[in-house]
């Protein structure tokens, strides 16, 4: 039995310390993942907390078919995408004229999206990162998750299929479409040669 399997087993018995060791191994990745889905630090923090709590509560449903890490990606992905869908539903019921309750992060993002990034930005890693994030935020959840899991988190197609609970063929086509959309945007802005 690997150390990870031992930790999962102990977590099953309600051992929070064992589970926290698992958390320590994955929290950086899960936070990064949540950040890419949600687009700001505050939501990333909340969603990754939520993901770990949910994982702890439902650890009995982890059967060990995949690695704990892959399963954790799946839990976190579901938590984030559910939240995004919930918000989208809520927003769509509001009047267009009504100002949305914005957090600080949203404001900054919006301003950024309005400014036309110049080629200089390429050299400014941070700003480029923010620009990419603003593009990701506009994408459909299934495209966004494909890009985030493959290009940013660098999971294999097989792992992505497990995380998204879909076939490898679906991963392939979603990824192809999502990359094509991003490529076009960057070409329009002359950010790709």
């Amino acid at each position, binding site marked *: 039995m690997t150390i990870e399997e031992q930790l999962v087993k102990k977590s099953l*018995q*309600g051992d*929070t310390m064992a*589970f*926290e060791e698992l*958390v*320590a191994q994955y*929290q*950086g990745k899960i*936070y*990064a993942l949540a*950040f890419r889905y949600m687009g700001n*630090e505050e939501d*990333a*923090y909340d969603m*990754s*907390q939520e993901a*770990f*709590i949910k994982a*702890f*509560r439902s*650890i*009995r449903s982890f059967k060990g078919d995949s690695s704990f890490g892959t399963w954790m990606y799946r839990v976190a992905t579901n938590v984030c995408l559910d939240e995004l869908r919930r918000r989208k539903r809520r927003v769509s019921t509001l009047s267009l004229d009504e100002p949305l309750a914005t957090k600080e992060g949203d404001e900054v993002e919006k301003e950024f999206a309005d400014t036309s990034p110049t080629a200089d930005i390429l050299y400014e*890693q*941070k700003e*480029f*990162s923010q620009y*990419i994030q603003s593009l990701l935020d506009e994408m459909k959840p299934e495209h966004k998750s494909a*890009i985030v899991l*493959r*290009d*940013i988190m*660098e999971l294999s*197609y097989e792992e992505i299929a497990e995380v998204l609970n879909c*076939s*490898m063929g679906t991963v*392939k*086509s979603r*990824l*192809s479409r999502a*990359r*094509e959309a*991003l*490529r076009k945007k*960057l*070409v329009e802005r002359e950010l*790709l*040669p």
Partner: protein
Amino acid sequence: MRCEQIKENLSAYMDQMTSRHENQLIEAHLTECATCRQELEQLQLLHALLANLDEPQIPDGFAEDLHGRLLEARPILLQQPSMKRPRQKGWIAAAVAGLALVVGIAGSSLLPVGSIANLWLDDKAKTNQTTTVAVEDIIQRFQQWRANEEESPGEVTNEPGQTEEIPQQQEQPGAETPAQVIDEGNGDQPVQIAEVDPQIADVVKSLIKVDSLAGSIDKVMEIAQANGAESSRSLGTTMQAMDAQAAREISIKAPRDQVGAILDQLADLGSASAPIAEQVELTEQYREAVITIEAIDQEIERLQDQGREEDLPRIEDLKKQSKIWGEKKAQIESDANLVTIKVYLVEETVQP
């Protein structure tokens, strides 16, 4: 291949997820087509840019925050019941026997009756039995089961405190008894043990080769409805793509006594293989649902008693969870009460 087709595959090609044959086609095209070459380069650059984005740093205090919340979540996890053997050995054997009968009617049965039924027989009987169970014995049990059921249909006993002595009526099959929660009414003690009834779902699988899928699916639906299988809402159809052959899986949930007739009629649709009977043990999942609901409800009560305003969102959240688990529990009860017939329709197509 034309540019359009090539472009669709460039993303997978870049990740080395295309077949050797596809690689040949793509590479041949790339030597001739500057546009596609440029697009591939752009995709590769895009991937490199994305892979090298700054990884956001997790804020300090993340683990400490989580620690507190994990401790809160822990009570629910800790409500682990002591494992108990299902009590109603008698009726499970009878249910298995019942299933064996209906499958038998449908034709050649692959059900390993003896081995399954024997598992559940009480120890005394077991010593007298070899691994095979006499068919007469099974039929007798089945008939006994039917007779009992007619006498007192669906009798439910739910008497708190009756943990040592199990009322005789509980030996009856088919009674959809809700969980027997011990410690009920004793609010000071946390509920630790929930004695639940065994939940076993019967699944019969039948593979039928048909000439045309489309027509056959409708016929399956008609057969199911004509036999009083649960109304269309339980006729969940799942589409599954299978290589080389077109296939559909259709689930029908039917009352036990209808299974034979349905299988018979299904067999007329095409060339049917012998039905295979399986059992899915759902007791543990059921127990988990019962325990979780109980623990959540207790927690809600506790928070409500404290009456603190900051707990309100948490109470709302818990209520939602309780509802979700309630639905899960109901689903298991329904699954265990009916027999699920999984029909696999396979259309044999001529390979081009």
